[in-house]
């Protein structure tokens, strides 16, 4: 029983992040603390981050429970936003969401996403897109909160 089509969803890197999530801890005294929850499926992400004096995300940690897609997306995101400014992170959220909604990316955007582009595979599974997006929406909420 081959499952080639599934391989685009469950890329090796995705499963690796799922099994060994990076930055899987909640930071104390975090500047950012945001929680995301999908009431229909129960996926959860709690995101914490510290900002340095220049407003750069100096440290990120998350905890969560849920499927491989939601958790690996969170894990990969924590790596991607580290050492970025909030503005850069916000831009990343936009680009990531656009990618998931099916927009063709230009080279610059693709470079910006780096290895996150492998989550494109989720697009073929529309019902799972919200899994991939959960952590990004959580980050977005946090940034909007920060901007207030």
């Amino acid at each position: 029983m081959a499952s080639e089509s599934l391989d685009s969803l469950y890329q090796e890197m995705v499963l690796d992040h799922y099994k060994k999530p990076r930055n899987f801890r909640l930071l104390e005294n975090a500047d950012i603390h945001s929680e995301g929850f999908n009431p229909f499926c129960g996926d959860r992400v709690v995101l914490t981050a510290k900002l340095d004096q220049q407003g750069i995300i100096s440290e990120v940690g998350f905890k969560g429970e849920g499927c491989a897609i939601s958790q690996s997306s969170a894990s990969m995101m924590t790596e991607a936003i580290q050492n970025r400014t909030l503005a850069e992170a916000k831009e990343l959220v936009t680009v990531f969401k656009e990618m998931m909604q099916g927009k063709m990316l230009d080279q610059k955007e693709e470079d910006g996403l780096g290895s996150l582009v492998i989550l494109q595979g989720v697009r073929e599974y529309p019902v799972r897109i919200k899994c991939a997006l959960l952590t990004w929406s959580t980050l977005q909420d946090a940034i909007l909160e920060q901007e207030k």
Partner: protein
Amino acid sequence: MFNSEQIRSDFPILTRKVNGHQLVYLDNAATSQKPRQVIDALSSVYEQFNSNVHRGVHTLSMEATEHYEDARRKVAEFINAPEPETVIFVRNTTEAINLVAHTWAIQNIGPGDEILTTEMEHHSNLVPWQKVAEMTGAKLRHIPVTDTGLLDTSQLDQLINEKTRLVAVVHVSNFLGTINPVKDLADRAHAVGARILIDSAQSVPHMPVDVIDLDCDFLAFSGHKIMAPPGIGVLYCKRSVIQDMEPFLRGGEMVREVWFDHATWNDIPNRFEAGTPNFADAVALGAAIDYLNAIGMEQVRSHEMEITKYGLEAFQSLEYLKILGPADHTLRGGLIAFHSTEIHPHDLGTFLDQKGIAIRTGHHCVMPMHRKIGLPASGRASFYIYNTTEEIDLLIETLKAALTYFTKGSSS
């Protein structure tokens, strides 16, 4: 262009015989008939993707959810709602109004406040407010109706005042046919800080309705009166009004998280859709809207105006029958209620039924207005896009025969 024969052929039931005669269906204000396109859409749900919505990762569930949310988008566009989330699916107009009564109303109305409705309300837009008044200590008032069947707007400055919290008003009366000035009422309500709920059961199916233009806070209608099945209805709510409201029915779908002793709520619209929604009838409602959009709501309205004008004139020829409601067809929806001093409407109804003609007889769930004008009951012929002037001719001819039949004894 508008093609009556073409349209009629879309409605399988119109070929039916009743008591040996071709059915003439003139009871559309009670419920509408369904085109083949809607019946087929419903069958397709069950044949192709029936599944519970929102909760599954499997294909059927995903497709069912997509079709359900697509129907919500269609409804939103149809009434020009700013976003699909402001469209809540309920069973019917009655449930929609009760939802507002049990949520926004009891959370925002208190002793001494006033709820304003009209004398021509359907029970569904009256009895819930009696309960809210009783529960909250608010006063229920009614805009009077003039002898010509119009809202008496002469006292409005006094009726809509600083104490008014809600104006709940029927858009088109299912009894008098009157089209009420809801946009003006919305302005007046907002000017004193009140909200307005529009009972659009008889308007949304028959004419263009635009919730942004009307600037209403709540608007309710029933699927079954707009060519869709009886199990689906719509409550439109302004987001700012409903966003943080406590829920009504509680259970699955409407929660965010649940513990043994408490729970938190999902976002709109799910917060107000407890339990498995009637996604199949919602999809059928979407199909009904597609069908009507293809004709065009302006067309629907002008066709009904034409029929109504024709009917109002033809009724003049009938002795013993008096028409209720405004004389001007441009101020009316597509229905004509009437009464006779000689014959009870039920007897007329039975006579007409013998000839295959279906009209409604009774109080049409508008008892207080009937009482006010001294009638226990009336007859009502109500139209839709598939009705023709030939059917009106048949109605008039048969009413004439009925009047002869029932009054023959009078002279014997």
